[in-house]
Each structure stands twice: as C-alpha cells, then as structure tokens.
C-alpha cells in the first residue's frame, strides 16, 4: 500500500526521522544536566537534614540515592556497597538506560523541590495551561500574520508603509518585554485585567462556568503578549514571499490574461503559503521558547512557570522533565506541520510518482 501512496510514504519517512530526533533529544536531555558536578541528593539533603541525627540522616540520604538512581541496588533492596562500605555509584551509561526505561513508562522521577511529588504530576497540572495559551496563539497569529503580509505585499502604498515597520517592531520586541509592559500598563496602572496568575485565588481548576470565566479573563494579557509577536514575524515573512511571487511569470501572465485581482491573489497566496508553512515548522521552537518566558512574566500556571521555579530551586528532575516535554511538544507540532505539507504540496505527490 505504501508503495503506491506517495503522501503516505512521505509521512512514514518523516515519522521515522522524528523518532531519530526524539532519541537525540532525550540523549541531550539526559547528558547535558549531568555535565556539571551538582548532585541532586546533596541539594535535597541540605534541605531536609536539619534537625536530624546522624543515623537517620544517613538512612534518608541512602533512600534518596536509591530514588534518584545514583547507586547500585542489590536484588534484596539494599544499597550495594564496596569493600570499604561505600555505596557503589551507578555508571552513567547504566543510569541512562534506566532513564530511557522510565521515560518510556512516562515516569520522570520525583521533584526535589516539592519532594514526594512526582514530576509527571506537576507537568500534568501545568501542561493544559501551556497548550491552551500557545496553540491558539500560534495558529491564530500565523493565519492573521500571513493574511496581513499578503495584503501588504499586494496593496503596497500607505497600508504597507504603516504595517511593515509596525510588524518589524512587533517582532523585535522580546515576548517577555512586551509582557512586562502589558502587566504594568493594563494590569497595574489601569487595572483592566489581572496582572498575574491564571485564575482567581478562591477557585480550583475544574470544568465550571465560574472557573472558565475567571480563566478567560486572566487569559487576555498573556495571549496578546505572544500573539502580537507571532503576527509581526509572520507578516514580515509573508510580505517578502508575496513580493517575490508578484514578480514571477505566472502572475504577470495571469495579469495579461485579465484574470481578476482576487483570483490572482488567491493563486499567489497558495504558492507563498507552502514555504511559510515549512517556515513555521522551523520557527516553532523559538516561538514556543519565547512564549514560555512570557508565561513567567504573568506567573501563568503553565510549563514556563514550572521551569522557572525548577531552575530557581536547582530541581534537576523537574527541569529535565519540563524540557523533555517541551521538546516532545515541539516535535509533535512539527510533525503535524509536515503531515499537512505532505497533503498540500503537489510536488511531493508528483516527485514520488515520477520517481516510481
């Protein structure tokens, strides 16, 4: 079946590529934090050992060493010790294999800062917020930015002269700067919108009308801080793509034939859109990163905030859990864009068919 279906072949190829990328990402995610000599157990012991006597502190340390997979454990559950009675450290390679096994089971270990809590629990609570903020912002921003860019390229004149510098400025402002400005002006000075947080203090996240109303009220400022930047960046890209398309022969020919303007615009839009779509796949990583930092400005209860608190508290399992998840999300989003391109781009169909 695959053989006769160029689009499916293409998608299968992309999928296997992303599997490889995922493996590289997880490797990077494991080894980079371990480049330094920081030991999570030391960090956690400094916190909990106060007021403990030597033997119970030692027992606790042993339990943590086991939990963070830093020492070899005998089948009986005891920590393996060498001749001098020191615990045997697990080799890095062995730790990596254990880490892979745990990641496959979606077990990301436990957080140091909020100790008995699992990293997966913290992430599960934060992820919906990040998705709810970033997915609509990026998709909407992409659509509107491209529309504006195409229009500016086609109309030129005053509209272009006004839109272009504005879009350039919007894309030059870092998301967190714009976020801080919004918090200050609309949150603190004018008090139109709540400055920080994701919902009213008294509420708990649930599927109720009052919670939803409160959450959407808190949604406005973070949304705009990311949205305007995506729109700006996309509009600039689309504008230059469209100006490029305007100079091509098919547009000139269509104009000579007297085809209506709106139809030419449609042709042009379709052609300029594909590179914009692949461009989206490339830019997604930096967009998501920018949005994560914007989240922190608003103390939005999403992944950005989780990363920030994790970094402040040297909570390594939480840091690498979050970074892994963000990477996986970006890879998934990229893959969806690739699949979309596979269906939209006639060249992918044609190339394979002539190839066979």
């Amino acid at each position: 079946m695959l053989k006769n279906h160029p689009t499916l072949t293409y998608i299968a190829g992309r999928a296997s590529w992303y599997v490889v990328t995922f493996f590289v990402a997880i490797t990077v995610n494991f080894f980079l934090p371990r480049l330094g000599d920081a030991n999570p157990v030391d960090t956690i012991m400094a916190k909990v050992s106060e007021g403990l006597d030597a033997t119970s502190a030692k027992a606790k340390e042993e339990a943590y060493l086991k939990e963070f997979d830093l020492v070899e454990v005998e089948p009986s559950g005891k920590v393996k010790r060498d001749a001098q009675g020191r615990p045997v450290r697990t080799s890095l390679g062995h730790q990596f294999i254990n880490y892979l096994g745990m990641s496959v089971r979606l077990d990301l270990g436990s957080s140091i800062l909020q100790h008995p809590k699992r990293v997966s629990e913290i992430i599960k609570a934060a992820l919906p917020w990040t998705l709810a903020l970033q997915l609509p912002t990026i998709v909407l921003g992409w659509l509107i930015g491209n529309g504006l860019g195409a229009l500016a390229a086609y109309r030129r004149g005053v509209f272009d002269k006004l839109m272009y510098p504005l879009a350039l400025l919007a894309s030059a402002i870092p998301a967190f700067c714009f976020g801080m400005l919004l918090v200050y002006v609309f949150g603190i000075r004018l008090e139109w919108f709540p400055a920080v947080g994701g919902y009213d203090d008294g509420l708990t996240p649930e599927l109720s009308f009052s919670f939803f109303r409160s959450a959407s009220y808190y949604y406005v400022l973070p949304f705009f801080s990311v949205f305007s930047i995506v729109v700006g960046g996309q509009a600039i890209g689309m504008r230059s793509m469209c100006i490029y398309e305007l100079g091509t022969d098919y547009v000139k020919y269509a104009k000579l034939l007297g085809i209506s303007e709106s139809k030419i615009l449609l042709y042009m839009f379709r052609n300029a859109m594909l590179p914009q779509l692949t461009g989206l796949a490339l830019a997604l990583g930096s967009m998501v990163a920018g949005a994560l930092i914007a989240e922190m400005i608003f103390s939005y209860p999403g992944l950005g905030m989780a990363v920030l608190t994790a970094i402040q508290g040297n909570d390594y399992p939480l840091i690498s859990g979050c970074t892994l998840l963000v990477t996986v999300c970006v890879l998934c989003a990229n893959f969806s864009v690739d699949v979309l391109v596979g269906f939209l781009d006639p060249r992918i169909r044609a190339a394979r068919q002539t190839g066979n």
Partner: protein
Amino acid sequence: MCWSAFSIRAFGQLGRRAIDMKLLKQLLRSPFFVLGAGLFLLTLSFGLLGPLFMNLDVNTRVGLAYMPPSASHWLGTDHMGVDMISMLVAGLRSSLYVGFLAGTVATSVGTLIGLYGGYKGGLIDDVLTVGTNLFLVIPSLIVLILLSASVENGRSLTLIALIIGCTTWTWSARAVRAQAVSLRNRDHVALARINGFGTLGIVFFHIMPYLLSYIFMVFILQMAAGILSEASLSMLGLGPYDSVSLGKILNEAKTNEALTDGAWWAFAPAMVLITTIVFSLYVINTSLEGVFNPRLRK
C-alpha cells in the same frame, strides 16, 4: 528570530555581488537603512562612549531603592539604590558583547558547515544536513537551559555567549548551504577544481566570496538572536554572574517588584534598549535585502 529564516529564503538567487561603492551609495539613499544604521550607531555609541563622558558606577549605592528620576540621577535608582544610567550602560555593553561574540561564533560555525556540506554533497552533506535539521527542531532555548543549569558555578558572560553561539548556528548553516549548493556547479568552480584547488581552497576562495554579503546579513540576524537569547536566559535567572546585562536588569526589576511598585524607570529603559538594538538590526537586515534583491524594490 522567527522570521529570519523566511527573509533568508525569499532572498533566493542574490547576494552574489561583492559590496562595492555603488552599493554603499544605494544603501545610504535608502531611508530604511539610514534609520536602522542610525539607531544602531546611537545605541552603540551610548554603550561605547558613555563611560568616557559620564561618571558610571554599578557597585555603589547612591540612594534609596527605586528613587524616581531626578537631576542627579536621570533615570533614578534600582532596587539596590544603584544609579540606573550606570546599570543601563553596563548592561548595554554586555548585551552588545554577547551579541557580537555569539553572532560571530554562530555565523562562523554555520557558514563553515553550510559551505562545506553544500559544496561537497554526497554522504558528508547528508550527515551534516541531518545533524543541522536535528538541532533546528530541538528548541535552542531548551539546550541553553540545560547547559547553563549544569555550569551553575561558572557562568561568565563569555561562556554564555559561546554557549548561545554553539546552539543557534543551525539556521544559518541551512541558509548558507542552500546558497552553496546553487554555486557548486558554476563554471569557475569547475575551473578551480581543474587547476588543482583543494576542497577548502575552493570553499574559501571560490564560493565564499560570492556569498559575503549574504553571510553578513546572516551575521546581523545571528547577532540579534544572540542578544535576545541572553536576555531570555537572564530572565530565567540563568544570566551571567560576573556582569550586568539588560536581561538581568529586567529580571531583577521583575523579581524585586518594580512592576507593582510602579518604578517604571527600573525596567522601561532596559526594554527600550533591547528593542531598539534588535529592531535596528532587523531594519538594517531588511534594507540590505532590499538593495541586494532588486525584486523587493519597487
């Protein structure tokens, strides 16, 4: 940085001419370029000449926390009572330094990999392309966070710049490779090969000169990306321990309640500076694009 990849792509078949006087004249006639270059030179001279004309000190407390702008301290003081202008000049210098260093590293690595792979083709090119694409997809900020978090105790400004340079080179490698591929089969390259030039000789003397203007544009965008990345890292609390940077000023203002205290002078000027540098670099880039690519001019 989002749109940089686009403008590079739209750029297409150009950037083949070396920079000459005619081009320079053309540039100076473009109001957009004058605006961008003017803004950039203005911020640059604020950072470079500031210490010569002003008495700057980022270590002494000259007053109380968050004192509003006054005659003696034009932009007030920060949360520690340090003169804000001194902080801004120092921060600007660090940001420019990071941008320059990170931009240089990223552009060199990217150009080298792109040129080499694009010219060589075959297996080497495939391997380099796959590697580039891998790290293009994995968000560079994530790699930056992981790396910076692991070098906790020695995060100097230079190290941060180097780390940024080593994680953001990917898209310039991609862009340069595309250009190198289109040059690979030119006659003069074949001629050089016949005359016994080695791979590196051809890459550096027969391909790179044609792409210099292009590489310069890549450098400008990489510089902007470097400045933004440093600011993002500092916002996360992963900034340099040894210097003041614009991102660090913003982070300190945020964590020390400048927003709720209404101390706009503690964060607004730093924002304006970051935005101005990045904006001016973007404007310079687009105006260069307009001159190198006649299609965009109208």
